[in-house]
């Protein structure tokens, strides 16, 4: 009888059922759309963060560059032969970029920590190449002229800053590019993971001492590098074995080479600038962070969350819109829908006072009548859920179809060579320290609204919840009816 009665009621009071269902559908549809849009936002942010971090990294460990004044370590000095007047000379200066170095033992210290799944070190370097001629007697080597002279404050991340220093009859071309020393024994983390090898091959563990490089595609194009080309740094020849294209179109470095080679070039044996850390449990990230800070003093630990907070631009605006306004709006609409469904159900019961009174007079237990009302409300909820899922899918589909483009700006502190955050940009002592840090990155990301199974499960849950709430309103009302109401004359 339960199902017969239920079926008959729903079929013959279709309109009333539909009104309740539509109210719930609106709320649930909104929740699905907002939920999928904000997970689209998360994905977009994830893309941005991935371009900085590489895959699979939960946090980085760095040590901030020293403030100016103690910056002598990073300040370049060139030794030119002042006697060979009129001849062309060239000098490479390889500097650690942006950070103070850490001992590579930090990697194993962090790696042994609880809840750490893996740790990999890397070394960020900047090479400053000066080519030029000068005439004896006319060149005055002054610090002011070399650091302040012809160098632009910051170059685009993929364009190499070029400058010309003219002083006292000397003419120099300055050319700088970035190097990243890759730990070839573990390629699962680090900035190279956010690039695809589009030509040649990447490093293998056997390349630890090899004089090989992987070039970023943009830099390779600019400098006409191909697989097999040779790059000379500080007199050492490196063979390009692969071309890597960054997923986001924005590479972490111009050239990648094995860590050992990078350490040798910069005379910083057993030094690194960055440790990439993967936590074994994403819930433990903040614990791991504070543990690292405790174990290795003076370091900066940057998590994805820290990085995300430096993202600005329309992406973060839209993202906060989706997570704040969207969330509250859909919660408000949902509560309103639940209330309306409840009140409608309850008023439907009052219109059926005599019907339920009669059933009670016939000997139906109160619980059976309540169950009937609950059942109807639950089915209404499920119909609302189905309609809501359809609405929500349509909304999410529309967003994905339109796929609005959002731009993400990363704070200047997050734009250093390796891509990791770090306050190094604050005080560029010489041109090595600040070259890239002054620039902030802008990435364009297309927004999509992926609907996950979780969202659908949530929607079904909400539908059941809405039905249950409505049913509770109505059922409570029905349970309070007296059997004597069957004799009531006025409806």
């Amino acid at each position: 009888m339960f199902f017969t009665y239920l079926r008959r009621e729903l079929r013959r009071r279709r309109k009333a059922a539909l009104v309740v269902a539509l109210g719930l559908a609106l709320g649930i549809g909104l929740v699905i759309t907002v939920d999928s849009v904000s997970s689209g936002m998360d994905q977009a942010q994830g893309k941005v963060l991935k371009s900085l971090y590489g895959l699979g990294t939960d946090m980085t460990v760095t040590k901030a560059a020293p403030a100016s004044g103690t910056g002598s370590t990073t300040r370049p000095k060139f030794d030119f032969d002042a006697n060979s007047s009129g001849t062309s000379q060239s000098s490479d200066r390889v500097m650690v970029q942006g950070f103070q170095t850490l001992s590579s033992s930090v990697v194993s210290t962090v790696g042994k920590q609880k809840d750490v799944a893996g740790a990999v070190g890397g070394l960020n370097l900047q090479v400053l190449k000066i080519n030029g001629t000068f005439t004896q007697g006319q060149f005055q080597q002054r610090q002011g002229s070399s650091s302040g002279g012809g160098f632009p404050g910051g170059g685009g991340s993929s364009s190499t800053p070029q400058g010309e220093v003219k002083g006292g009859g000397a003419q120099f071309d300055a050319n700088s590019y970035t190097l990243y020393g890759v730990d070839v024994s573990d390629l699962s983390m680090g900035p190279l993971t956010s690039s695809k090898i589009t030509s040649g091959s990447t490093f293998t563990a056997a390349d630890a001492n090899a004089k090989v490089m992987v070039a970023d595609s943009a830099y390779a194009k600019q400098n006409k590098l191909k697989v097999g080309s040779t790059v000379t740094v500080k007199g050492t020849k490196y063979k390009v074995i692969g071309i890597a294209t960054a997923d986001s179109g924005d590479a972490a470095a111009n050239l990648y080479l094995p860590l050992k080679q990078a350490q040798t070039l910069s005379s910083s044996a057993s030094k690194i600038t960055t440790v990439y850390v993967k936590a074994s449990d994403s819930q433990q990230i903040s614990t791991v962070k504070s543990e690292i800070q405790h174990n290795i003093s003076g370091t900066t630990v940057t998590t994805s969350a820290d990085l995300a907070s430096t993202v600005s631009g329309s992406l973060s605006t839209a993202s906060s819109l989706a997570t704040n306004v969207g969330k509250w709006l859909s919660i408000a609409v949902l509560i309103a829908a639940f209330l309306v469904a409840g009140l409608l159900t309850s008023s439907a019961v009052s219109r059926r006072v005599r019907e339920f009174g009669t059933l009670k007079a016939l000997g139906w237990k109160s619980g059976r009548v309540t169950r009937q009302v609950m059942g109807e409300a639950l089915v209404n909820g499920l119909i609302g859920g189905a309609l809501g899922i359809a609405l929500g899918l349509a909304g999410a589909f529309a967003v994905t179809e339109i796929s609005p483009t959002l731009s993400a700006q990363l704070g200047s502190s997050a734009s250093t060579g390796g891509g990791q955050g770090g306050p190094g940009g604050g005080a560029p002592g010489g041109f090595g320290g600040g070259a890239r840090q002054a620039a902030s990155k802008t990435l364009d990301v297309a927004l999509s609204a992926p609907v996950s199974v979780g969202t659908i499960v949530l929607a079904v849950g909400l539908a059941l919840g809405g039905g249950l709430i409505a049913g509770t309103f109505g059922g409570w009302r029905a349970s309070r009816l007296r059997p004597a109401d069957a004799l009531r004359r006025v409806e």
Partner: protein
Amino acid sequence: MYQLSGVTKRYRRGKTNVDALRGIDLTIADGDQLVIQGPTGGGKSTLLQMLGALDRPTSGVIEFDGTDLAKLSEARLTKVRSENIGFIFQSFNLIPTLNAQENVETALVPMGVRPADRRARAAAALESVGLGERLTHLPSELSGGQQQRVAIARALVKEPKVLLADEPTGNLDEGTRDDIMALLEGLWRDRGLTFILVTHDSTIAKRAPRLATLRKGTLTVRESSRT
């Protein structure tokens, strides 16, 4: 069957009290027919609610087959209703979304009758009130008289001891009224029911073997020689 003594019912309406029944003493034997009449607001429906275990009196004793209905819990009253009492209402009170057969079946639901038996018994009950052809009709597809016949089938399908009717012909035209009354009297005679009927209809009241009149909550009974 029934033994009422000192039954009162007081309704509270805000600050004012309405004494719908003021000390009713009444005995109704098995298989009796009692017709209750009286002016509107006299307490007829209220008394019927007491007899039908729909409500409890404010004070007094309503002995039904040896148990005092005034002292039973709501759950026990529900059981008494489902097993022993058939109701017929002035406005039929059929479930509008259920067809004739399903409406009759609702009376068997609380007794736990299996669905197949339920359908068969409902069909037979409708047959006995002359609606064998109308099993799948909705109430809205039936005339007033036919609707009341469905309600009668619903009241009797569980074979109750008592049949209570509150102005069963109040909403019917004269011809239909006579049909329904004839049907009810026939059923009362054939089945040995205890039949309590509230009516405004003086012709019915005149024919009644036993007539009770309720005025302002007080009952007077006129016995007439049985015909």
